[in-house]
Structures are given as structure tokens and as C-alpha cells.
């Protein structure tokens, strides 16, 4: 049994989740607390990957990563290689594909932070940045953890978008879901079944972990004891 695709899947999920959390936090904050013209358009744009078929998103990323596009040419000039059919290209595609799964739980959590806490912190001398770190992030931590875990699990389960952008290069872009697909195509059902069961078990454990962490990190209520 070749477990390397699983290793690639988890490595991809870890790296993508790192960038997703980094990028989703400021976007979720802006969507939760800023009012600007075109905000509904911005929200729709960031939610697009939920409704787009993965192959459509994969197609656009593939075109953008190719040497014919300015982005692809810029990347080639800097790194001397192409984004398409590379692990780095998979990371970019995964970040785009899982972005709403990271942003939306965080945005919801930030919107639900008690405004009294934010106001109190501001009058206690906290700058916007300190308010974010000291109040909004701790109060909304459930949403941040959920966003990170969903991003991780969603990236592990990707198929269409990684196939379009990364192909199936063993040791480089061949992830678990593609390996299962290939095993089925080659009528190697036993290996496919073992891999599918492993992915199923992982997904169940990951989601259970999300619910467990959510329960553990729930912000205690500040309601008075009567």
C-alpha cells in the first residue's frame, strides 16, 4: 500500500490551513466590523468557491498559473518554475477553494462578540489592534478554531480542483483522493477501499475534534450569579 498520497494530502492541508488562517482573519474582521460600499459584493466574491464546481475554480487557477498569464509569468521570473502542476500551485488552489470555509465561521464569531466588551476595551485605552488581539480574538476563538479545522478537513477532501491544478504527479501533487480515484480506475478495489476507509476515518476524527474543541474553547458566560 502506497501511503505517500496521504502524506501529501496532510502536508497540503497543513500548509494551506496556515495560509488560510493568516488571510482569513483580516478578511473576516473587515467583513464583520467595517461598513463599506460593495460589501455584499465582497461577501459574494469570497463565498464563490462554495457554489462554483471545483473544476471551474481549478480551470481559472490553472489558467492564472500558466506562463501565458501575468501572474504565472511573474512567478516564473521569481522562482524559475511554474505554479501549475506543482505542490505550491496546489497550495494556492487549496487556499482559494477553502477560503469561505475559513472566513465564514470566523466572521460569524466576530459578529457575535458582545459589543459592550469591545466598547469597554476601547475606553480602557485599547487600540483597534489590541482590541482585536485582546478581546475579539479570544471572544471569537470558537469561530477561529472551527474555521481552521474545517479548512484542514476540506483541503484533505479536495479532488476536482487539485486534479485540475496539480494533476497526479507521484510524490509531488498526487493526493489521497486522486490516488483512490486511480485505484478504482485500475480496478484495484481492495486498495481503494482501504484508502477510502482511512480517509473516512480521518474525516470523522477531524470533525469530532472540531466539535470537541468547540465545546472546550467555548467562552464562559459572564452572566451574573444570582
Amino acid at each position, binding site marked *: 500500500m502506497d501511503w505517500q498520497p496521504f502524506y501529501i494530502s496532510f502536508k497540503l492541508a497543513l500548509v494551506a490551513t496556515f495560509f488560510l488562517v493568516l488571510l482569513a482573519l483580516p478578511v473576516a474582521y473587515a467583513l464583520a466590523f467595517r461598513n463599506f460600499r460593495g460589501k455584499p459584493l465582497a461577501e459574494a466574491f469570497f463565498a464563490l468557491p462554495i457554489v462554483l464546481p471545483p473544476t471551474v475554480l481549478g480551470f481559472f487557477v490553472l489558467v492564472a498559473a500558466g506562463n501565458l498569464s501575468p501572474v504565472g509569468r511573474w512567478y516564473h521570473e521569481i522562482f524559475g518554475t511554474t505554479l501549475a502542476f506543482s505542490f505550491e500551485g496546489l497550495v494556492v488552489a487549496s487556499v482559494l477553494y477553502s477560503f469561505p470555509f475559513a472566513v465564514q465561521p470566523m466572521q460569524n464569531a466576530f459578529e457575535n462578540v*458582545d459589543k*459592550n*466588551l469591545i*466598547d*469597554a*476595551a*476601547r*475606553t*480602557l*485605552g*485599547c*487600540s483597534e489592534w489590541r482590541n482585536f488581539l*485582546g*478581546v475579539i480574538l*479570544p*471572544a471569537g476563538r470558537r469561530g477561529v478554531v472551527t474555521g481552521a479545522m474545517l479548512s484542514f478537513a476540506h483541503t484533505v477532501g479536495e479532488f476536482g480542483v487539485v486534479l485540475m491544478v496539480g494533476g497526479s504527479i507521484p510524490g509531488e501533487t498526487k493526493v489521497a483522493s486522486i490516488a483512490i480515484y486511480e485505484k478504482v480506475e485500475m480496478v484495484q478495489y481492495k486498495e481503494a477501499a482501504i484508502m477510502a476507509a482511512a480517509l473516512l476515518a480521518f474525516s470523522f476524527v477531524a470533525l469530532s475534534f472540531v466539535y470537541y474543541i468547540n465545546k472546550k474553547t467555548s*467562552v*464562559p*458566560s*459572564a*452572566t*451574573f*450569579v*444570582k
Partner: protein
Amino acid sequence: MILIDFRKKLKTFDMDVSLRLGREITVLTGPNGSGKSTLLRVVAGLVKPDSGVIAVNGVTYFDEKTNLPPEERKTGYIPHGNSLFPWLTVEENVLFGLTKALALQEEQWIQELYSKLDMAHLKKRYPGTLSGGEAQKALLGRALVRRPKILLLDEPLSAVDMAARPRIRLFIKEVQKDWGIPVIMVTHDQAEAHTMGDRAFELFEGAIAAVAKRGRIIKLPMVSY
């Protein structure tokens, strides 16, 4: 001297308030939605007026050229309800507005606050385990630790049980008297307004409808709603 003179267009009415206050306890009364809390939030810098002047002890917080952000106003603002950070202990809440260096520098002042509020034993407790009176003490400690120039209290005793109210009332009076910190306090409780206030203003639809001095506050409300 505190100057609160501003206009603000709200959804249901336009606020137009002009007050000159001294180092005293000023009570704001009036029906729900009359603009009492908005007035406190304007002074704290959380709501921006359309025009006017807000100045405390000669420092302009707001005028046509200035609009100091809340973090630079040095107000001790306690919003209605429990605004303690539930994931922090009482001690961490009290020290929230201070840097570590400042907390060390202000150690004596912090201990004085703990002792005056009789809350040293609450330091390690979390807000979810506090009674209304204990939480209010922690809120007052947190608001006062930064030596504010004015204390803004939005219904500070509404969640405090009857037995604990006299002590909190006394403390607020002492804050004003001993440390010379002016207090603006919103309340719906006429008896509380009467016992606490040096002056009371009754708000109705964003304007001052009636004024009463100490001893005559019990006669409010003068406007029938």
C-alpha cells in the same frame, strides 16, 4: 468643568443636549430610548456627534476640529450589563487597561482600589462565578485603575442585589468626593437618583426635559410619558 453640548441625528429623534457640569454626581433619568445611554457613549467617544463641543477639565474631546478616539479620552465607562471579559480573572480584568510597566508603577493605587472596593478576595475568580454586586465592584475597579477624568456609569446598580447596593452607592459617592472624579450616572431608579445625585437631568426624546438639584430629585419625572 465638563461641557457637553452636542447635536446628533438619531433614527427616531434628534438629540440636542447642552450641559455644564461640575465635579459632582450627575444623574440622568428618563424613559427607555430617551438618549441617556447615547449621551454617555458620546462623552466616551463611542458615538460621534454631528456637531457641538465635548470638553472635560479643559481637554477638548470633540469639537469641529477634534475628535479624540475613546482610547485617548481617559473616561471610566461602564456600559449597561456585564462587560467583564469572561475569559479573564477579576485581576486580569482590572489590569486590562494597563501595560505591565504601568501596573508595576501603579501597584499602590491598585491595592488601594482593591481594599476600598473590598474585592481582594475576588482576584482569582472568573466573572461567571461572581454575583451582580461583586461583578460591579470589578467593573468599577477596572474603570478606575487608569485614573479616569470622568466616570460614566450606565445603570450601575440594575444587576446588583438590594443588600449589596448601599456599599456600591457609598463607594461611588466616595470616588467623587475623595478623588474628585465627576460622575455621570444613568438610572431608572428614582430613589437611587435621589440619594446619589447632586443634580439630575431628565431626558425625553433627546433633550433635557427637566432639571432638579439635590433634595428635589425625588420630584422627577416631571414629564408624563
